[in-house]
């Protein structure tokens, strides 16, 4: 899977905003954790396993929590149409 390519992340006046350029343009205000994840996976293919491993390595989560979080993040990205599978 890949993140939707026509996006641009802005760190603008202390806030993170993801500009999404689909059929219509939309702005999503996101938190820093989202932004860091986005920057890490933007522009490359990755699997749910890759996301789980990243959460364990970068955030020190245990395997079970990382698996739950990875699933939730992917569901969120799918709901916002930010994922291409």
């Amino acid at each position: 899977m890949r993140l939707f390519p026509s996006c641009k992340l802005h760190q603008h006046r202390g806030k993170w905003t993801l500009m999404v350029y689909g059929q219509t343009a939309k702005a999503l205000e996101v938190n820093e954790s989202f932004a860091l994840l986005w920057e890490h996976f933007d522009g490359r293919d990755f699997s749910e396993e890759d996301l789980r491993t990243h959460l364990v390595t970068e955030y020190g989560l245990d395997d079970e929590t990382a698996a739950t979080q990875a699933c939730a993040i992917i569901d969120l990205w799918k709901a916002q149409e930010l994922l291409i599978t």
Partner: protein
Amino acid sequence: MYGSAVPAQTLSCLKTLQEDDWNTLQAMARRQTVSGLLYSAVNQLPEDIVVPSRVDYALMAGADALESTHHKMTQAVRALTEAFAAGGLVPVYLKGLECSRLYPEPPLRELGDIDIWFPPEQFDAARAFIQDHVREKVCPGADGGFHIKFHGYDVDVHRQYFDLPRQISGLPEIPSAEAELLMLNAHILKHACSAGVGLRQLCDMALAYARLPYDVQRYQKACEQCGILRWTRMLSSFLNQYLGADAPLFGLPAEDPAPLEKIIRRGGNFGHFDSSRERALSRKPFLRKLDTLGRLLRSVPFALRYAPGETGFLLRTLLKGNIQSLT
């Protein structure tokens, strides 16, 4: 614009702005084609200054579009340079993309078309090369140059480096910082004395003065040779007062920049937003050209006051260009 902090006085003023004021500011930036600079400036504002979300998002979307255009145009210029190199030709790029390198964030400088110049000894070879190898239709341009489309971009190939209606010998050699300043200066003068000029070109000039290592005396001499010294001081006065520049006055008093400010406010980017032009656009081509001629004549008092030595030649050249396109 210079990468420095927003002045305290400006911050105080911004704190009082309401949503309508921000919308007006954004519209003004669009008219003047400096939306990228507004985005950059807003990005530096402290968080206690409230900027409406819609304005923020519109500025972000605008900045993203500018970056995309900058990237694509850079690729087109690279391809164009390679194409010319195959023919042993080396173009000199002017204005637009070249000016963007002066900015703290080059992609945020709004771009239009691609302007290039060849030394006189290469010009005819360049035209022939384009016709034979680049295989794009060559259309005549305004200054004896020509125009083509390349990778979807308008490319103006200029015969003259300086937008000066008469040939003057002894000007700074090309390329040099003084030549580039004179080129940008004369370009602004030409448009200020015709359809109009916007803030984008004035920002280019301010940054050119700030970033290019030029010799003030050589530059002053060139302006004197061209008969545009008073104009240059008026231009500097505007840049210093409104854009915080350190543009040269050559040891002479500043000029009142109000007439230039009026031109910029009235028409925006190259006069495109002048109300008379907006009316004229709905008319037939002949009447549109008459409107352009009318605006040229309206600029005569300004030209006579600030560039009297050049006025006659300037207007003759502009009138000739417009009459030729009428017939």
